Structures are given as C-alpha cells and as structure tokens.
C-alpha cells in the first residue's frame, strides 16, 4: 500500500501549506484593518491609565510601542514575536494575550463542544426521521421547524431562553460560567454544567437545521436507490434498511459537514457568550473591539482562523481519505 502512504503525506503537505498561507493572509489583513482604524491606540492606552501624562511621556510610549515606524516593519516585528509565542499584552485585561486566549478558549471549547455534539446528534436524528417519513406529517413539521430556526437570530433565541428559563421559571442561572461569590477552585462540575446548559442549547439549536436538512436529502437519495428496493424486496423492514444501508451512507457526509461548520459555530458562540455573559473567547473579542484592545483583537482573530482551518482540514481529510467513492475519484 505504498500509494496510500504517499497520498496521505501529499494530502497533509498540501493542506499544511494551504493553512499556513491562509493564516499568513489573515494576519496581514487583520493587521492592515487594525492599522487603518481611526482609533488611536496610544490615546486609548492613556485613557485606560486614568491619569494625565505629559507630551514627553506620551512620546516615550510612542517610541516604546514603535507607533511611528513604517507599517511593514511593525508587521514583521509583530509577526516574529507572535511566532516566538509572545502574543502581546492585552490593554483591557493587562495580561498576556496568550494567557487570556488559553484560559478563555477552555471555557469556549466546553461550550462549543457541547453545542457541537448536541446539534450533531439532534440534527442527525431529526434528519433520519425526516428522511424516513418523507412527505408525511413528521417530515413537513420538522422541515418547517428547521426553516424557522435558521431564520431566528442566535442572540434573540438566547434572550428568549433567558427570559423563559432563567427569569420566569428560574431553572437556570442568568449568566457566567460559575456561581457568583464562589472561589474558582470550589466550583463543582455540576455547577459548571448547570451554567453551560442554556448557552449550549441555544448555540446547538442554531446549527442543527443545516445538518438535519442535509441528512434528510442524503437519506432520501439512499432510500430511492435500487439496492434499497432490493433490500425491501428481500423483506427488510424500515429499521433494518436504515441500519444496514442508510446510516452507513449518511453518517460520513454528516460528520464532514459538522466539521466544516466550525466557522458558524465560532460566530454563533460570540453571540451566545455575549447574551449569557459567558467568559469565553467570544465575549473577549467583543469587549476587545469595543475597548480598542488591539493585541487581543488580533490574537483572537488569528486564533479563530486557526480553529476554523483545522475544522475544514479535518472535513477535507475525512472526505478524501475515508469515503471510498471519493478516494477512487481522487486517484
């Protein structure tokens, strides 16, 4: 199987080069955009200090930050520091950006992972139900529901959930990732999950429609095929057909699609985290932009691009390496 190993290496190499080029481009674009901003970072920093400073001191800060150097030099020095692991210091939180991203990403990851699994499982199950009951009432109701949910803005759904489940029913806390007034170390897993539930459900409801409709279409294609007709003629029931023929053909595209949806997941998490005051990357990036915290904004942008690229690469690899049909065509 020399061909397989060679193809694997080639695929990895190809995607690796592509990801590096994309990330480089993202860093350049983000840097240019931030530099183009009319908001003066030095002024913002001085405002954040809270004291008046003399023009000499201001000039010192400018010299230290290298504000007056040409943009290309600034970019190159920023990039080389970035590659050495120094992501700069956040002006808003007064801590290294890398630390903030690491800490907040752990929170965001928990949220996104829950939502991702939830939307994948619900979406796939509903898609199968819709496919099996094609054009009958369960299908048409669920299809309407999917269309409805894809037209509802994430943050409004979050607001409604807050209103119903937190304010009226009091089942869930109003926000944050842990109870207020409890030390970081003594927060139990149950409390964390309790705080996580509502944002995760909101986020998953936003993305399951896509996968459900996709699965439905694929399943219908499979059920209309001749091998399923033959299976039915042999006397297989709906459940057996689904298990033996449906799931095998439908599961892989669904998983691939789910990996390819990292961008929407991240974008949705920005909104969900802001509604629920959840301390993740999304609320950090919104705060960073509003408070002109350039290092943090750049850091999170790059990080989100990396996150999405990894998701897309997994989707491509799954598609190209696991699916025998595409593998054959790829040769």
């Amino acid at each position, binding site marked *: 199987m020399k061909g397989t190993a060679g193809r694997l290496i080639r695929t990895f190499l190809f995607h690796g080069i*592509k990801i590096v*080029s*994309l990330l480089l*481009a*993202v860093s350049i*674009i*983000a840097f240019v*955009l*931030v530099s*183009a*901003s*009319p*908001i003066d970072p030095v002024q913002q920093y001085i405002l954040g200090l809270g004291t008046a400073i003399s023009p000499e001191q201001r000039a010192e800060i400018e010299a230290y930050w290298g504000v007056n150097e040409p943009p290309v030099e600034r970019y190159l020095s920023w990039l080389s520091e970035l590659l050495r692991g120094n992501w700069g210091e956040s002006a808003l939180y007064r801590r290294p950006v890398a630390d903030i991203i690491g800490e907040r990403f752990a929170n965001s990851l928990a949220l996104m992972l829950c939502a991702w699994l939830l939307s994948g499982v619900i979406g796939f199950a509903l898609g199968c139900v819709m496919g099996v009951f094609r054009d009958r009432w369960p299908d048409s109701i669920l299809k309407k529901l999917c*269309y*409805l949910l894809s*037209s*509802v*803005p*994430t*943050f*409004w759904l979050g*607001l*409604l959930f*807050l*209103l119903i489940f937190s*304010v009226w029913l009091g089942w869930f806390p*109003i926000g944050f990732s842990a109870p207020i007034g409890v030390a970081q170390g003594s927060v139990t897993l149950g409390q964390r999950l309790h705080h996580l539930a509502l944002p995760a459900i909101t986020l998953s409801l936003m993305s399951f429609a896509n996968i459900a409709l996709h699965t439905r279409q694929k399943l219908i294609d499979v059920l209309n095929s001749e091998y399923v007709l033959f299976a039915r003629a042999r006397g297989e029931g709906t459940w057996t057909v689904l298990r033996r023929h449906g799931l095998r053909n439908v599961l892989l595209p669904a998983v691939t699609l789910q990996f390819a949806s990292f*961008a*929407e997941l*991240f*974008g*949705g998490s*920005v*909104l969900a985290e*802001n*509604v629920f005051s959840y301390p993740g990357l999304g609320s950090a*990036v*919104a705060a960073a*932009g*509003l408070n*002109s915290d350039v290092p943090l*904004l750049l850091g*999170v*942008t790059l990080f*989100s*691009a990396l996150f*999405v*690229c990894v998701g*897309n690469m997994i989707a491509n690899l799954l598609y190209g390496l696991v699916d025998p049909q595409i593998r054959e065509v790829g040769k």
Partner: protein
Amino acid sequence: MKKLNRRTKVLLLTAVMALVLIAVYAFGLLIPEEAYASSFLQAKQPPSFAHPFGTDSLGRDLLMRTLKGLSVSMTVGLVASVISAVIAVLVGIAAATGSKYVDAFLNWLIDLVMGVPHTILVILISFAMGRGLKGLLIGIAATHWCSLARLIRGEVLQLRNQQYVAVSRRLGKSSGWILCNHLLPHLVPQFFVGLVLMFPHAILHEASVSFLGYGLPPEQPAIGIILSESMRYLSAGMWWTAVFPGLLLVAIVLLVDRLGDHLRRILDPYSAQE
C-alpha cells in the same frame, strides 16, 4: 370560479409578499422622529392599545422604534447584499473563465474569507472603519459573497461546456460576445435568487453586530440595539422589549426567505418537477 394553477398561485403569493415587505419598508421610512420620542410619563409600560409593543425604559414607543429599525436594517441588508451579489458574479465568472492560476487564487480567496468566522471579520472591519453604518455595510458586503460565487463558478463552468457555446466559438465569436450573449443571460436568475436569499442573512448579521455594540450608534433605532438594551431589563420583568421586536425581525426574515424560494421556483425551469 376556476381553480388557479400552481404557477399563478406562486406568482400571486410572491407579489403579495413583496408588497408586504415594501409596505413595511416604506412605513418605517416615513415614521417621523416624534413617533418614538422619549417621554418619561410613559416609561416601561407593558403592551396596550396605545402602544401595541409597549414602551422601553425611556418611554419610547417600541412598535414605531422597531419598524424604523427594520427599515434601517432592510436598507443595510439590501445595499450590502447587492454589493455582495455583484462581487459574487464577478468573482464567479473570473474564476470559471480565467486561467488556472486565477481560478486557484480566487478559490484560495474564498477559503480565506470563509476561514475567519463572519462575526469576527465584521467586527474587525467595523473596528477598522471606526464603527458605524459604513463599517457595517462594508463588513457585511465583504463576507457574504463566497457561497454565491462558488455557485456561479460551477454554473459558468457547466455552461462553457455546452454545445452552443462551442459552436459560437467555432463561428468566430469573441469571448466577450459569448460572455454577454450566452453566459450572462443564464446567470440572471441565479443572481436575483442569490441576492434575495442573501438578504435575510445580511439582516441577521446586521442585527447581531449591532447587538454586540458595533455598527449603528446607540441612539439610532435598530433591532440589534433595541434587543441589547432589552437585555438590561430582562430580570426586571420587561419581557415585551425583547419578545416583540425580535418576533417582527424573524417574521421579516422568514418572509424574505420564502420570497426568495418562490422566486427560485418561478425562474428555475427545473423546479417544475418538484
């Protein structure tokens, strides 16, 4: 009375939807500022006959504010999706008809724009433009063209292999002539349907980004801003400030989405078999 056939029904329905949308838009534009002026005597009132959506914490009528906000959102959505759709057509045609390198580059560009979460990219662009309507417009226009561009690229690639295009070429027609007479007419339905289907996304993005505090200034009536204000009063029991404006937004988005779908059915001959 004779039963209407399906095409006529779809056409009528589409016309009604378009009329409703235009009416909402025009009504929102025509609302004078006095209609949602603040009045402290009427602050925080639940829905009633005088104020069907209730009033907010400053005593502004929420129905009027929401309608005004919707018309602003629709303007942003319309302009941004027109720009986006034009970019999509240009990129799609260039990718399909250009050389191998142009195609590879444009595909890479699409991957690039799709590689950053749209919310983050719009925040970044809005930040670069110093927050405000312009940044919002450019941000949304710059992020929404990718999938339509891919669609159009595929369509053009398919059209280029058609026999009549080959015959045209053999007859000595120039590439420009073929583009204008064979390719572009086929892309018109794609363009309009893509445009209408992009519109709800653009509105939703506008609302989300305004909700986060970018985009429109806080004194402007916009759905995102109304909803982000409502968040502060949720625990105080002012549910109407969150529910009704959002509901109206969802209704408009659904309406536009359906409109796009119907338009596709009217313009796309293959949909007859559905």
